[in-house]
């Protein structure tokens, strides 16, 4: 049940300032619920960011990243209209991909 991300990519010179909001429980596996039971691990393992299809970031995350994570990336050599793609995959095999277009700074 992967929820959509929000991606903003603003051009600053030739650098795209990319801001990504993700919705994910990022359960560490150490938290107990109200009944005292351990909530099983459920977190994003891997995040890939692409620029016009080319991978510019391949990150391995762990349960140390908190719930509803925010990721900021600056991509050099970008132009307005370029495509930024973001894909995450979690430890349960759930995946989500969203895309944004680089816009010129207003």
């Amino acid at each position, binding site marked *: 049940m992967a929820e*959509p*991300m929000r991606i903003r990519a603003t051009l600053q010179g030739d650098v795209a300032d990319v801001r990504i909001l993700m919705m994910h429980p990022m359960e560490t596996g150490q938290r107990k619920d109200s009944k005292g039971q351990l909530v099983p691990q459920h977190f994003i393992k891997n995040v890939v960011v692409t620029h016009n299809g080319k*991978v510019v970031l391949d990150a391995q995350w762990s349960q140390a990243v908190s719930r509803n994570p*925010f990721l900021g990336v600056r991509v050099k050599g970008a132009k307005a209209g370029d495509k930024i793609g973001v894909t995450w995959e979690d430890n349960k095999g759930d995946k989500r991909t969203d895309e944004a277009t680089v816009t010129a700074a207003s």
Partner: protein
Amino acid sequence: MTRRRFHFIAAACFSVAMAAAHAQSNDPLGVGRQMLEQDNPGDLWIDKGKELFHQKRGPKNASLEQCDFGMGPGKLEGASVRLPRYFADTDKVEDLESRLVTCMVNLQGYKREDVVKRAISPAGSSGSDIEALALYITSRSNGMKMNVSLNHPKEQEMYKAGEYLFFRRSGQTDFGCVTCHGDANKRIRLQDLIHMTSKEGVQGVVSTWPAYRGAHFVVRTMQWRLYDCFWQMRLPELTYLSDASIALTTYLHYQGNGAVTRVPGFKR
């Protein structure tokens, strides 16, 4: 393939702090606040709310597109800034959440008790439909000024009652809203208290709900905020959509007239 690219960009990865370039580096809290204003996890619930608004749901398999928030069926811009207001069809003063529930019951066929029961989601959950919808509808008035009027006698009653309740002290702590929110530059422990008997203070309140509550990881609404205050005051539980809650909301929103809506807010 990925390793080469990764180390090349590594220095710039997770560069959340790069936003400092746009703000004063000697005010880290200010930088943080600015970043949260630009990228608030609550934004994700606007999208959810929009989806829920248009989706055919409930026993009647209908969307909320025909819901009248006071500006006519389906008209959302400028609707939330006029709430709470009197509605002839229910003969009541309704705030945003009451009106939503009215529509979910009448248009979509949901049972009122069921909707109310799930209205406030557990912390750490994916949030309730009402939370997402309330945020989405309010966001459609982003940039617009709070504009509550008290033309109808019932609106005037709600306002006066809300004012009375704001200053009403009770319980073993002798607290009323005014106890914590009646002075400037006050805080409980390290939590700043909004000075709600000042124009700027109350405007800051009414313009930033619904808000993402960081500690709960979900969007919270004004109804929840009022409930939580009474919890903290060691008083009984404020009933969802109760008269007291609408009265207090009417009082605060009217006092906050002129405030420019900017949701989702970000609260601790």
